[in-house]
């Protein structure tokens, strides 16, 4: 009986532990996707400025409150503007940015197709 008790307790502890580990992982992931606004060329994750330390704490609290990654991003976007997110959103200012690689890929493919395949025939 005692063995069963110990088993249950340890298994609960371990599952708590892994939950915690998951939280830390998402926490770090979010921090890596945020620009430290008062540093140059650093993410919030990399920075040890007072701003970044507080922000990491806020992210941690929000995760504990059960907020999703998306919700945290949109919360910070309201507070600090889109600039805080490393990944630019898809809107009319960034159409060119997002679509240019695809366009280049298609045009490049067309050139290759024309040069090698059509010429061969």
């Amino acid at each position, binding site marked *: 009986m005692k063995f069963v008790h110990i088993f249950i307790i340890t298994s609960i502890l371990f599952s708590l532990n892994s939950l915690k580990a998951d939280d830390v992982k998402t926490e770090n992931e979010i921090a890596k996707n945020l620009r430290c*606004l*008062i540093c*140059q060329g650093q993410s919030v994750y990399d920075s040890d*400025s*007072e*701003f970044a*330390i*507080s*922000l990491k*704490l*806020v992210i941690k*609290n929000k995760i504990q409150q059960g907020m999703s990654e998306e919700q945290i991003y949109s919360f910070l976007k309201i*507070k*600090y*503007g889109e*600039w805080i997110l490393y990944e630019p959103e898809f809107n009319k200012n960034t159409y060119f940015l997002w679509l240019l690689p695809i366009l280049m890929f298609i045009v490049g493919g067309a050139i290759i197709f024309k040069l090698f395949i059509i010429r061969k025939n």
Partner: protein
Amino acid sequence: MKSKVFPLVLILFFFIIFVIFFKGLKNSNIYTPKTNLEIKVPSFELKSFENNNIISETIFKDDEYYLMNIWASWCIPCREEHEFLMELKKNQKIKLIGFNYKDNFKNAKSFLKDLGNPYDIIVIDEDGTSSIDWGAYGVPESFLIYQNNIIKRFIGPINNDDLLGIQKIIK
């Protein structure tokens, strides 16, 4: 014909890229957010200097102007702006709220003892999480508040021009 167009296009392409990057050199690489935004005051519940719990809704009344100033005793620029805050304190139409950011209580007390206390209320943000709700970057930073809206924000220390600007708005 074909061999003439291609180098021309290539040169034009690199020229355009050069112009874009050359212009980019002159852009400021420090991000400055918009400072004239009308945002609702975020709500908070913090300890005051006298160790009371303070809820934001009880501080900000609709018909008065408030300047919420984020400061800390360890912040050097805060010392520079302090004289302007003391000057602003003389104006009856505005209330100053101190937002003590990540500070040591003892140091904060002696800071105010040395330089004077311009604040009507001081709240303590021990871990800096409340300042994130305000969209603040650090210290010093100030928010001019009217009718529960942030009508202007000052990033960095307040100078004489800012002081005159505030006095003009609240006139």
